[in-house]
């Protein structure tokens, strides 16, 4: 996926972000909300990229050990 995809930010429901913040017990300043909505939309787009990548491999993957573990480069 190219970076140009980032300009295509999906619309998000503002009430969805409000509910998530409420559930997390976070009370943001009202003036932060417009910028956070933009960033939340980017975040969901980033997560789409991640889920697509993670789902591309059906094999088990070691996520519990340090990222350097078991990798052969020489």
């Amino acid at each position, binding site marked *: 996926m*190219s970076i140009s*995809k980032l300009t295509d930010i999906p619309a998000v429901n503002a009430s969805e*972000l409000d509910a*998530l913040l409420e559930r997390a017990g976070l009370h943001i300043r009202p003036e932060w909300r417009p910028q956070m909505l933009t*960033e939340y939309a980017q975040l969901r787009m980033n997560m789409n990229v991640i889920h697509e990548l993670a789902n591309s491999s059906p094999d088990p*993957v070691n996520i519990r050990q340090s990222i350097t573990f078991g990798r052969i480069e020489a």
Partner: protein
Amino acid sequence: MNFAALSIAELGARLRRREFSSVELTRWTLEKAGEANGILHAFIRILPEKALSDAEKADQAFAAGIDLGPMQGIPYAAKDLFDVGGVATTCHSKFGLNAIADSDAGVIERLQDGGAVLLGKTSTFEFALYGPDPELPFPIARNPWNLQHYTGGSSSGSAVTIAGGVLRMALGTDTGGSIRTPSSWCGTVGLKPTFGRVTRRGCFPLSGSLDHCGPLARSVSDAAIALQVLAGHDPADPDCHDSPVADYVSGLNRPVAGLRVGIPRPLLETASAQTLAGVERTAMLLRSEGAEVFDVETPTLLQFGSVVRALLIIEGFHVHERRMRDHIEDFGPLSARRLALAAGYTAADYLATLKARRLLAEDISKVMRTCDVMLCATTPATAPALTQTATPFDPSTPSMTNPGNVMGNPAITVPIGLDTNGLPLAVQLVGRLFDEAKLLQVAHAVERLSGWTQIELPQFAA
């Protein structure tokens, strides 16, 4: 004498010949730091009493014939995320104003044991998160090459104090590029070692799976000497590796002929024409010395950036959860807004991110089996002007440094010249896991071939 013009190796040699003492060197450095700080704001706190005490101890050891290693008697600074016993670790935040540390961080301890002289603690972004933010208790560090341009972050003060001609080495941390980005924009060398090569004990965490500690330095040889002291196992950091520490210094001058250098084109997607030209020129210089340079395929910046963003926010929120719930108003707005986004992630998102990270890292290992190092850029362009309305750390622009944190491989920023506006231009080199020695060898060749060592530091004035 301008002590900062001498490399750490040269300073060490002259200290051992008793041409000057560590106390004399430290007094000069303290004076220089005080003068520069009024303009550059590199230091949150200068520690003259501790510095002079450290210097006296180093001199006493020299007099007794005790050699503590290559940093003995050499002044350095530490980003204010590292604990120093008896001193507040502010993390450039209101929360840290009275957070007096009980003991030294692992890296401070290693440098202390090696006889180094801690001069002070440098400015950062709040908790190394996001910035620069003017709504914090300490001023923003300024770029000595042009005070009206960004320094980069979050190890901003560490880069600034080196580019300002005060010190040869300062400690930084790198979670998404915080050593390498300010190094690129301030014209310093910035080394992010392999994940686990340097202890993080006593360093305030941002994201446990991405955090690295390492040196920013005036030259590649200074960075190599610093790493020699910093590297090593620490059982108190569960991610710290117990593999043997290589010799990072003696091989710096080895020829690069025959070495294989891969250029990861997908990681240059956002590079400006001038940055791309810098990478191509560096490739040409390495070819002229007999290195084999070729293109390699990697995952995209967007994939790496998406992983860093998720891990940094989720793990960062875990660190600050209680503060965020009870005292969100005491954070700077940039940090608070970013951490609050953690509410938007699910447990499934986190697990998918860990899996995606491992897949990306395995892809990079396949590439690293075909080359000794990768040559790319650290930043899309040179330091942007402060007048730019959007912060250059806007998450909608994937970072060129994020891949290094995802894969955990060592990576280094090396300045290669100045752009048409007189600002430093740099490249990034990425090495194989735990092969900092070869990475530094190639970096040293790039530094020499580029002519960077002939460029004078900037003269700055308010």
